[in-house]
C-alpha cells in the first residue's frame, strides 16, 4: 500500500460537522436540562448536583463540536488513482479502504440542505458489496470527482 492518499476534503467540512454535531446534541441538552430541573424540584438536591447532567453534556458537546471535526478533517484523505480509489478516515480507529475502479457499478453526488448552504456535496460510489462515500467536497470538485470516477470505471479492463 502506498503512502497516505493525497487529497483532502473541503475545509468548510469542519463547520458543517460542527453544526450537525450541535443539532444532534440538542435533544441531549434539553434532556439534561429537564433532568437537572427534576433533580432540584423533586429530589431536593442542591444546584451543584443538578447541573451535573448539563455539565456532562457540555463536556461531550465540547468533544463533538469543538475537537472531533478538526481531527476528523485532518485524518480524512482520498485519492482517485487510475485503477483504484483510496480512502483514509477515522479519529481513533483509522480505516483505510481501497476500492478497485473496475468494481464500481455507479456513482452519485448528493447534497443535504446544510451542505447546500455551504456549497458542499458528497460523492457516493457503489460496488456489489455496498456503498462508499467521500463526504464534504466543494460542489464543483465533487462533480469533477464523480465524472472522473465514472470515466475511469468505464475504461477499466475487467480482470
Amino acid at each position: 500500500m502506498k503512502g497516505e492518499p493525497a487529497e483532502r476534503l473541503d475545509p468548510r467540512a469542519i463547520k458543517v460537522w460542527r453544526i450537525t454535531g450541535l443539532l444532534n446534541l440538542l435533544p441531549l441538552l434539553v434532556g439534561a436540562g429537564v433532568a437537572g430541573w427534576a433533580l432540584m424540584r423533586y429530589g431536593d438536591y442542591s444546584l451543584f448536583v443538578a447541573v451535573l447532567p448539563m455539565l456532562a453534556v457540555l463536556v461531550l458537546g465540547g468533544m463533538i463540536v469543538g475537537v472531533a471535526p478538526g481531527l476528523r478533517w485532518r485524518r480524512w484523505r482520498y485519492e482517485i488513482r487510475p485503477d483504484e480509489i483510496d480512502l483514509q478516515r477515522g479519529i481513533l480507529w483509522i480505516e483505510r479502504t481501497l476500492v478497485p475502479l473496475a468494481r464500481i457499478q455507479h456513482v452519485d453526488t448528493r447534497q443535504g440542505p446544510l451542505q447546500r448552504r455551504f456549497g458542499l456535496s458528497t460523492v457516493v460510489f457503489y460496488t456489489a458489496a455496498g456503498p462508499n462515500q467521500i463526504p464534504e467536497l466543494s460542489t464543483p470538485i465533487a462533480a469533477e470527482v464523480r465524472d472522473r470516477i465514472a470515466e475511469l470505471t468505464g475504461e477499466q479492463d475487467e480482470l
Partner: protein
Amino acid sequence: MSSERHLHPVAMLIGAVSTLRRWIGGLVLPGIVLLMSQGFSLRTVVLFLLAVIVVAMLAALWGFLSWRATTYVVTGNSFRLNRGVFQKSERTIPLDHVQSVDTVQGVIQRAFGVYEVRIETAGGGASEPDASLSALDRAAAQSLRREIEGSQRERVEDSEGRKVLRRLSTGDLLIAGATSGQIGVAFSLLAVGSQFFDNFLSDDFVRRLIETLAPNWLMLLLIFVPVGLLLAWFLAIAGTVLAYTDFTLSREGDFLYIKRGLLERREATIPLSRIQAIRVTEGLLRQPFGLAAVRVESAGYGEDAGVSTMLFPLLPHDEVQEFLAAATPEFAVNPALQKLPRRALRRYVFRAVVGYLILALVAAVAWFVVFGSVLGLLAFILVPPSALYGWLSYRDSGWAFEEDRLVVRYRSLGRKTAIAPRRRLQSREVARSPFQRRVRLATFVAEVASGSGGSGLRVTDLDAGAAETLAGNLGPHGASA
C-alpha cells in the same frame, strides 16, 4: 412456442389448499367459540361440518378460478406470467435477467408427480420479484426450462450432460444431523414449545406432575436438562434429514445443480460465474472427526440465498480440496497459511474473556449483596474455557494470498476457511484501533458481494505492515506489483 399455456390441473388443488390454509386461521376461533358455547350437541356439530364444507367448496372454486386465470408464455426475449381472478396482473421477466430456474417438489406435487417451477431473477432481490408456477408436469417443466435457459447460449453448446460430483449417503446424513450443532436452536424451539404446552395444561396439573416426578429442584434439573438436550438433539437430526436427504451435487459445464430434501424435493441451480466466495466450516463437533461442510456465497441469487447456500453438508476435510477442484475449480487452493504474530495472542484472549469477566464480576457482587454468600464466585468457572477459546481462535487464525486467491482462516465457534479469488474482491480495508497501533497490529477486511450488501473475509490482529502489503497486493495489478 408462443401460445399461452396453463398450469397442470393439480395447481387447482394446490391453490385450494393454500387458500384453505389462509382461511383456517379465521375459522378456528369462531369454531371453537361455537363448540364451547353450545356444547357438543348434534346441531352445532352439523353446523360446524356444514361450514367446513362450504369453506372447502369456496376454496375449490377459488382454486379453479385462479388456475383458469393463470397462464404463462415465453415469447421472444421474455417470460410472461398472467395471474389474478379479479385483479389481473401480468408480470414480464426479460430472459437475460433470469438467474436460475429451480424446481421444487412439495408433498402435494410429489403425490401427483408434478413440479413447482421457480424462476429467480438476478440482482433484483425484493425489488424485482420472482415468478413461481405451482404445478407443471415433467415435460412442461423441462421444456420451459429449455426455453428460458436456451437463451443463455453457452449452455446449449456445453451439453456433455450432468455429472454427479457427490451424493450424501444415509450414514453421512445421520452423522451430519448428529454433529450439526443445531442443538441450541432446537433447544430454544423446545423451550418455546414447552411454554405453549404450559398454557394448555393447567398450572395446577403441571405442579402436581413435577412434584410427583421430582421432589426437589436438583432432581428436576437432573431429569429435565438431559431429556431436553436429547430431544433437542433428535430434533436437530430430524431437521437435517428433512432438509438434506439424498443431497446430490452435480455439475454441467458452468452450472452446479443441487437436489435435496425428504418430503419436499428441492432443486437449485448455481451458475459458477456468480459464486463470490467459498466457506469451509469445521464445526465444533465435526472438527475432532475431520469433517467439514462447504457453503458458497453467491451474489444476488434468489431472495433468501443471497447470503450463502449449502454446497455440501458433510465431507471429510481431507477431501475438500479434491471436491472443490471438481465443483468450483476457481476456488481450489490449499496454501500454507501465514500465522499471526505472537503479540496478537494477548488481544485474542482478552477479547474472549473480557465479556465473561465483567459478567462474572457483576454476578459475584450481586450474589454477595443479595444472598451474602460467596457462591457467586462460581460464575468465574466460565473464564478459563473462554480463555481457551481465545487461544484456539488465535492459533487457528491465518491468511494466505497465493495463485491470485485470498484464503482466510478464523474461528467463530467452528473453524472456518474462506476462499475468494482476487477478482471477486469488491474492496479491501485496513483498520487500526489505538490499541492495535501501539503494538503494530491491524485488522484486514476484504469485502465480496453477497446478496444484499457485502460479506467480509476478515483477519483480526495481523502485523500492520503485512496488512498493508496484503491490501496492496490484492489490488488491480497486484500480481505484478
